[in-house]
């Protein structure tokens, strides 16, 4: 693992994260409470407290390419329990957003990342989610065409899968939101 880092790069990265986070990385004293209570810790490559420390050390490539940032389900258990009130869940959002802006595709968790992307495309197209189209496009993109398909017949029978989506009237306003903030 590369541990000797350029100090200026480290400072820049920490400053970027902290300004997006509205919080200070130095608040964390590595007690590990966040990692102990994390419901998805068993799948992660780095625990949440390790991610915080590595961010503070400027290990940008490692954190932005970690499985952890995409496995976090934003349940907020960590932030709720943090004795220092640090935005642990928030840092995952910030790191995902930086990875996304840099065009980094997760090697191991690209499906999670793709789901978010396809979801937002769906919002952009209709202003609302059209579930069937969302699932279809996600499956095409990930090539997991048959996974979960066994659920479809019963969901159809129960009326859970709507064949038509709703599109809002003022779609221009949604387009503008995406233009201004995407």
């Amino acid at each position, binding site marked *: 693992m590369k541990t000797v880092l350029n100090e200026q790069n480290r400072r820049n990265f920490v400053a970027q994260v902290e300004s*997006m986070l*509205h919080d200070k990385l130095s608040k964390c004293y590595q007690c590990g409470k966040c990692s102990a209570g994390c*419901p*998805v810790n*068993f*799948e992660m490559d780095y625990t949440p407290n390790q991610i915080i420390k590595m961010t503070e050390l400027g290990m940008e490539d490692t954190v932005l390419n970690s499985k952890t940032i995409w*496995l976090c*389900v*934003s*349940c*907020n*258990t960590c*932030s*709720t329990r943090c004795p220092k009130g640090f935005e642990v*869940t928030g840092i995952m*959002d*910030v790191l*995902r*957003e930086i990875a*996304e802006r840099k065009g980094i595709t997760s090697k191991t*968790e690209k*499906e*999670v*990342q*793709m*789901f*978010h*992307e396809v*979801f*937002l495309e769906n*919002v952009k197209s209709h*202003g*609302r*989610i059209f*579930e069937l189209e969302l*699932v279809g496009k*996600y499956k095409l993109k*990930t090539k997991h065409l048959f*996974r*979960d398909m066994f*659920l479809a017949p*019963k*969901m159809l029978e*129960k*009326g*859970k*899968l*709507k064949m038509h989506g*709703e599109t*809002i*009237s*003022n779609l221009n*306003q*949604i387009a*503008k*939101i*995406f233009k*201004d*903030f*995407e």
Partner: protein
Amino acid sequence: MKLAYYPGCSLKGTSFEYEVSLLKILEIMGIEVKEIPDWNCCGASAAHSINHNLAVALPARNLAIAEKDGFESILAPCAACSNRLKNADYELKRDDILKKKITNSLEMSYDSEMSINNMLEFLIGVVGKDKIKSMVKKPLAGLKVASYYGCLLVRPPKVMQFDDPENPVTMDELVSLTGAEPVDYSYKTECCGAINSLSKPDVVMALTGKVLYDAKNHGADVVVVACPLCHSNLDVRQKEIERKYEEKIGLPVLFITELLGLSFGINPKDLAIDGHMVAADRVLKKIEELSK
């Protein structure tokens, strides 16, 4: 007071049972809500996961429309929607620069005076326990009910400002009002895996399985929820979880609005209880037997 209703996308699709049942019980209680005109998706977990500004701007449009239409209070029954609306409201209050950018983009103003309520908050705070209790025509005495809160209703507490984040009791109180018995179990605020249902199904089944098996082992006849994502994971994935862990669960999952509706004596069909993947027949039968 004019009450706005923000259904969100799930209630118009996979979780239509939630909308049918909540509108039915509100109608019977004589409470009128009006859908926010031309509402848009709140961005759910996807927006905040990869684009913070979008995660504030998308819900902000709904808040601004509600304000412009003279509403002071919003009912957002989907836990994810109410969470995102509250988060947006919180960010707009603390970040003046972002607020200015967003209101400029929307060409609408927003004063941040909106009261945003999840389903439980609305039932307890706006409708009131006395009113609900007075509606119970068919007490569910003897029925054991596990309330599952999940994450989004109570966390993060500084933004949600609702109930206790580790040991919430609001839903259990509503269960008690119906005459049913709340079940004490360990997983009521553990995450179900939420948005990763499609992208990480194995992880979601591991998490959801813990909730279901623990509720069952503590004697629950039924689980109640107030979130469409929780409902999908607990109900739609249940058969698969049984296969994966080779142990039967057979636990129907109802929305809290359906349980209340049953205690009000409303026909299960009018509450769309037949829309669930795990059939609730056994629970309905037990209710009939108990009421004899």
